[in-house]
């Protein structure tokens, strides 16, 4: 587990753990306010229905009910809908179709679970009872669930104003160059791929407590958000038209997010508005079934992908055509996920010179789809790595060999890909070599034979992935359609006693920022780890922030803190020079101590801090008192974590059950601040990636649009006995363009692992004639694939 030292590079045990382990964590549902009321949302039971009328009279009269609101009430108050944060342009040059996304349905319900009305009552039970009394007169309409089908003519329209349900078609890369490569190809590998729809399932359901104080004309919203500042900005500027400085958003402890808690949702916006209406605080906590129905889902791509190879097995071209399901409405980052975060990663770790991608984004009568751990990059990795592995089989090359022939060599960095990104650094061969060693690939054939004797089929699968993290240079993001900046803010406050409070705009909901950020500060300022407190998640305490997602906290948020510390050290140096009566240039700084070069005259950081607040012997004419600095950091490039995953499976051909017997992940995360936390992030990501490959998949009934996997009875969450003990390691090349040299580690596991798992199964079942398999590879699906293959062989 590594040494628990508190400096950078030490596996410091986490500061936040004690409260979590003793039941003292403070999650949104744990917060209660005086006079609090409870909300229950009335949700559409239909995937597509016209709402003729809503009769709320019975509900209003029910015991304990304070108010019932519908979309009409919001419209009467001029309340807008939820905005989309990223504008993509269609190939025609027109902006994407952006139909309204009302908080409560206006005239139509567009997916099962869509918000139709809200009931507010004295107790949870009363709110729920009364919600059943809201009488909605629906005309059921036909629904369309599959993105491919939704594009066909004559299908039901999700939004009347969006023909063919097409939000946009978008392209990246040089299609002429790609076509030319295919014309001269020695071999073409092609695949039809489905990236299965996932439901994020952070274990803490979404929740909100909203209140309004008339005396101060001020709103407070406690909510399960990954980025409270963004929630405040969007709620005040775009949804509710409130003055931003009169709104405080607090994300206290949050029980996991994985993307699903980035976005402002209808519930907390409606609650904030309604809290003023009724003059009382209102609480809402999702039941798990509501999470299944209305949290933003992830993935859901259908792709046709082709790879052109020359006689040596070199990749000379790639063409990808993807249909991405957006669900019924555009969620905050929905439009960016299948474009900017997807197609730009299609070069993978390879020198493929010509790539062309075409993405059609489609509305369907399903819950909105948005970023889920990895967001676009798992979908890209799945396309690239499935193609590469299949090409290896087609060309008779080993999985390692075809990859090595195509890796971007270490001396080619910085490397400009044909799909917009510029990779700064990496060593792909190093992670692959280490992964093969750790996975004992050399011993695999022996293990395969041994398994065969037990009637089991063993297989091995590879995935060498790359991702782009640390979103993002704001100007580049802006040029690509982002409607917000993507920097981060940090503030470092030294107190007179030498203790430190750090304020960050990055939110922590499991990532351990309170520990990692304190390590960085302790390391740079030479202040004991226990004397550093990290504050996050409160718009009244941290200046600003863009929040936590896309593995950006350390690379962007951590860098902002480093910048603030640089200012602290600069100022302290000047104070120290004055106090030590030396020239500023003669002051050396190391590990919390300012020393006059070549002497034993020195001051500690704490002494300097004291003097900054008690400025008796202080350069007051040049410097302000106090020692409190803040900084904004805007990254100059993405960071590019990369790595090699190797999966070994054993398949029971009689039942179709797949067991993962070994899983190896060797990643390049750049510099590592806390190896223990990084390893934990990898484990968690792997569990979600393996979950996608083997277990998880949202299923809507194709006709009725009902969510069949709407509880844990049908949606398979990875449990302890579904997973192996992981073998993980890192081979790091420091990032070249941020002050910490870090790249980010939060999503790698979920990005790299799915193709490795699927290819391991295909490899295992090759003797039975199986050549392809869809995710999730459930026992039923694997068994069916074996039956089909055997049927083909007989035929």
């Amino acid at each position, binding site marked *: 587990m590594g040494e628990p030292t508190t400096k950078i590079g030490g596996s410091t045990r986490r500061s936040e753990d004690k409260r979590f*382990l*003793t039941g003292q964590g403070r999650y949104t549902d744990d917060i209660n306010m005086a006079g609090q009321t409870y909300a229950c949302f009335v949700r559409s039971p239909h995937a597509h229905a016209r709402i003729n009328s809503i009769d709320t009279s019975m509900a209003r009269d029910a015991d304990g009910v304070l108010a019932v609101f519908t979309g009409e009430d919001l419209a009467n108050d001029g309340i807008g809908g939820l905005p989309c944060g990223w504008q993509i342009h269609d190939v025609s040059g027109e902006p994407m179709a952006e139909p309204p996304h009302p908080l409560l349905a206006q005239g139509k319900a567009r997916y099962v679970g869509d918000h139709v009305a809200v009931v507010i009552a004295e107790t949870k039970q009363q709110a729920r009872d009364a919600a059943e009394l809201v009488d909605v007169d629906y005309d059921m309409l036909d629904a369309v669930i599959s993105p491919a089908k939704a594009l066909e003519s004559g299908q039901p329209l999700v939004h009347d104003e969006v023909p063919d349900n097409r939000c946009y078609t978008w392209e990246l890369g040089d299609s002429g160059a790609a076509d030319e490569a295919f014309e001269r190809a020695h071999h073409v590998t092609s695949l039809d791929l489905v990236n299965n729809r996932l439901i994020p399932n952070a274990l803490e359901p979404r929740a909100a407590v909203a209140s309004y104080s008339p005396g101060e004309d001020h709103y407070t919203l406690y909510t399960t958000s990954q980025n409270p500042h963004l929630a405040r900005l969007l709620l005040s500027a775009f949804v509710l038209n409130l003055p931003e400085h009169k709104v405080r958003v607090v994300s206290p402890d949050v029980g996991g997010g994985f993307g699903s808690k980035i976005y402002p949702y209808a519930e907390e916006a409606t609650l904030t508005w309604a809290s003023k209406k009724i003059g009382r605080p209102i609480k809402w906590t999702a039941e798990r079934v509501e999470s299944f129905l209305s949290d933003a889902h992830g993935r859901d791509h259908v792709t046709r992908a082709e790879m052109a190879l020359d006689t040596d097995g070199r990749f000379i071209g790639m063409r990808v055509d993807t249909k991405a399901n957006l669900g019924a409405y555009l969620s905050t980052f929905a439009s960016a996920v299948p474009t900017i975060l997807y197609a730009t990663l299609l070069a993978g770790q390879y020198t493929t010179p010509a790539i062309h991608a075409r993405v059609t984004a489609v509305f369907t009568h399903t819950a909105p789809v948005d970023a889920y751990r990895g967001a676009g990059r798992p979908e890209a990795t799945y396309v690239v790595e499935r193609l590469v592995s299949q090409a290896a089989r087609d060309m008779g090359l080993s999985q390692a060999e075809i990859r090595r022939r195509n890796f971007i060599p270490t001396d080619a960095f910085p490397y400009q890909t044909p799909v917009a990104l510029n990779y700064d650094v990496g060593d792909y061969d190093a992670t692959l070599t280490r992964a093969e060693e750790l996975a004992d690939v050399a011993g695999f054939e022996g293990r395969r034979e041994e398994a065969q004797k037990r009637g089991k089929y063993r297989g091995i699968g590879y995935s060498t992935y790359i991702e782009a993290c640390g979103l993002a240079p704001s100007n580049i993001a802006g040029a690509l359609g982002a409607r917000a900046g993507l920097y981060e803010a940090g503030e470092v406050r030294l107190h007179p006693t030498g203790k430190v409070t750090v304020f960050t705009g990055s939110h922590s909901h499991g990532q351990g920022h309170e520990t990692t950020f304190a390590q960085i500060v302790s390391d740079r300022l030479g202040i004991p780890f226990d004397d550093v407190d990290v504050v996050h998640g409160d718009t009244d305490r941290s200046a600003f922030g863009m929040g936590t997602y896309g593995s950006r906290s350390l690379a962007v948020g951590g860098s902002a803190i480093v910048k603030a510390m640089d200012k602290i050290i600069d100022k302290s140096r000047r104070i120290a020079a004055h106090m030590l009566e030396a020239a500023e240039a003669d002051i050396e700084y190391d590990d919390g101590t300012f020393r006059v070069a070549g002497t034993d005259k020195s001051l500690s950081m704490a002494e300097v801090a004291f003097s900054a607040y008690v400025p008796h012997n202080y350069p007051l004419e040049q410097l302000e008192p106090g020692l409190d600095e803040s900084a904004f950091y805007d990254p100059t490039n993405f960071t590019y974590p990369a790595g090699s995953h190797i999966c070994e499976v054993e398949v029971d051909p009689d039942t179709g059950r797949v067991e993962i017997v070994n899983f190896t992940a060797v990643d390049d995360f750049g510099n590592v601040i806390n190896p223990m936390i990084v390893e934990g992030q990898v484990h968690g990501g792997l569990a979600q990636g393996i979950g996608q490959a083997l277990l998880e998949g949202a299923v809507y009934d194709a006709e009725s649009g009902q969510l069949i996997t709407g509880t844990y009875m049908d949606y398979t969450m990875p449990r302890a006995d579904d997973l192996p003990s992981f073998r993980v390691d890192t081979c790091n090349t420091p990032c070249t363009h941020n002050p910490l040299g870090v790249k980010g580690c939060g999503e790698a596991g979920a990005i790299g692992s799915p193709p490795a798992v699927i290819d391991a199964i295909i490899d295992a079942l090759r003797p039975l004639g199986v050549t392809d398999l869809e995710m999730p590879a459930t026992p039923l699906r694997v068994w069916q694939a074996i039956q089909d293959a055997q049927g083909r062989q007989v035929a």
Partner: protein
Amino acid sequence: MNVSMTVNGRSVTADVDPPTLLTEFLRDHLGLTGTHVGCDTGQCGSCTIHLDGRAVKACSVLAAQAEGARVVTIEGLADGNGDLHPMQAAFREEHGLQCGFCTPGMVMAAVDLVNTYPNASDTTIRENLEGNICRCTGYENIVRALKSGAAGMGDQGNG
């Protein structure tokens, strides 16, 4: 109706509606918010507490059913001297938690697991964690924590 039970060593009596779940009783009536609720169907295990010494899901028991019982929640697991219970300490040491939401239930389940299956193998541990979902950790460090917590509990001789 009235219910009485011992919670973390303290006798409590309260007037509740019959449909009150033990989770609601603990969280809303007693303010013991360490017991979490992660689902509606009894699968996730975030609500695990000890009822008469055995791990149970408090979301799947009525407060009324716990009449006269001895309830221990995550808040009452440690001895009260400020030290963590060996299982809590092991979860911290082995990094067996991230967001902390599953953690109280996970720790309570782990303690009963060790009591029921001393010296359990990794396989037994993983199989018997079926009732506790963790979305963050991938379980690897939870399994490690459980083993090291078991050793700690053995050292202390406290089951």
